[in-house]
């Protein structure tokens, strides 16, 4: 398993090597290793409580693994903080919207440009011409992203007033505004209706293809996952139980077992809302 993981391939975007995460004795992730290639759409799936969001939080630097390390574009990361991973081109969206509710759509997306600023805060305070030019540049870039995602109509509306579906897109727009090379999406389609889901899936594919962004996505809708991803990683109880193409994962007995098990045992932390469909649907 580790042959292609301990050494970075030329086209590797992001990898985890022996990542273990513990919270006061509870093991959220247990020796998880994988490698995600540049330019692919990789889905993280598994029953609730499998450790998907924890893993995404590790990849983004919000959690520090107790053992193991990450590698982004060949660079080994130990104890990286969100600010550093952001600098390395990793952007993310949040499962429970991490937007800034009091700010407008444009302002929210502008915060995504934080690392692209070229002017010092003192220059901004003094309103120097260079700072103003920079400001205009940032606004243009943010507007381009807003247009790309088709949310122009809400440009100046505070996001707290928007529908959930639009907020999900604003979250995506803010992440995209940083011009990331790797995009981590935590359940971008949760709570969306079928039409919005299809719309979002199309956008994700467009982002992946037109902007050459590697996408790591947590998604419960197996139908969407199978249609969208090039690569699927399956987690269960903090361990990796499957890793491969959609066809390989579909045929993996351990995955089928886990999904049937998750559906059949009472001890599972799963809830009906987010439980993946049973293995027969795989």
């Amino acid at each position, binding site marked *: 398993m580790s042959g292609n993981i301990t050494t970075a391939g030329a086209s590797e975007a992001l990898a985890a090597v022996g990542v273990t995460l513990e919270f006061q004795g509870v093991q959220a992730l247990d020796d998880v290793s994988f490698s995600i290639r540049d330019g692919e759409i990789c889905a993280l799936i598994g029953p609730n409580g499998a450790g998907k969001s924890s893993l995404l939080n590790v990849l*983004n630097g919000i959690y520090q693994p107790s053992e193991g390390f990450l590698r982004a574009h060949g660079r080994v990361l130990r104890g990286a903080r969100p*600010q550093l991973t*952001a600098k390395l081109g990793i952007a993310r969206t*949040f499962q429970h919207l991490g937007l800034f509710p*009091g*700010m407008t759509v444009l302002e929210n997306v502008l*915060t995504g440009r934080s690392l692209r600023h070229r002017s010092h*805060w003192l220059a901004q305070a003094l309103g120097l011409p260079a700072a103003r030019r920079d*400001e205009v540049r940032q606004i243009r870039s943010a507007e381009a992203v807003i247009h790309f995602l088709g949310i122009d109509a809400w440009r100046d509306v505070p996001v707290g007033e928007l529908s959930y579906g639009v907020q999900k897109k604003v979250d995506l727009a803010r992440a995209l505004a*940083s011009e990331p090379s790797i995009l981590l999406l935590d359940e971008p389609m949760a709570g969306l209706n079928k039409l919005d889901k299809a719309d979002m899936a199309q956008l994700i594919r467009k982002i992946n293809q037109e902007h050459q962004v590697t996408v790591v996505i947590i998604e419960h809708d197996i139908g969407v996952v199978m249609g969208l991803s090039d690569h699927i990683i399956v987690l269960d109880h903090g361990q990796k139980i499957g890793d491969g193409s959609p066809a390989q994962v579909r045929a993996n007995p351990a995955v089928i077992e886990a999904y049937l098990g998750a559906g059949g045992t009472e001890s599972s932390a799963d809830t009906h809302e987010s439980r993946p469909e049973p293995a027969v649907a795989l």
Partner: protein
Amino acid sequence: MEFFLEVLIGGLLAGVMYSLVAIGFVLIYKASGVFNFAQGAMVLFAALTYVSLIDQGLPPWLSLVVTAALMVLLAVAVEAAVLRPLVNRPPIVLFMATLGLAYVIEGAAQALWGTQVHGLELGISDAPMFLGGLLISSFDLVAAGIAGLLVIVLSLFFSYTQTGLALRAVADDPLAAQSVGIRIRRIWVIVWSAAGLVALVAGLLWGARLGVQFSLSLVVLKALPVLIIGGFTSITGAIVGGLLIGAGEKLAEVYLGQLIGNGIENWFPYVLALLFLLVRPAGLFGQRTIERV
């Protein structure tokens, strides 16, 4: 009528001075959700440092620059020694920390510069002047002008610059702000520096009025009703709250004082704040939080 207007304007001008102190609280509360109990100590520290430097023979402009630099240094120290170790702790923990910080800063100020009362002469005349037939204190007028200017500069900075945007992002959701690459520590230093500079201006104006002494740190008590009325998260709220308190207490003293005894202005603001708490607990401009249950 003229008398009423004079009282009203005098009250409004005094209110601007309350706003000035309240804004220091708002800045820090907005950015970190912390009620900074040490704001009063910062006012005292700044004023005492400025006066003592002048007593040492420094020219006023140099004293001002050195004191301002010290306030920025203080912000850096607070971030490193207090905020960073306590990151992600509940607000009450940070509040307790600022309580301790208040004593440390007060102690440091008095250990450095002594405890005697200093007079502070800013060179602003305190002679009353006639303006459109009304008798108005020229000191109050200048102080209000300075405070107004400061408020405008701060509002513009926080509304229209990228740093201001980052500050609001940190205030809304620190984790999301970090994830888009905003350097949260830098934002804290900037905010505490701004609060320190506001404390400096407040310290000088209040110091010139009351003398620079320990009780200067108690000026902040008048900022509390201002914050309750205006809301803890709004600079505009701090201004409106200050004006309401200033005008309210002076009018109450003059007109109600005759009926129920003098000295009303000392407690009237708190009664007003109490009424606001009953009717509009988030204040006039404060952010009302909706919690999902």
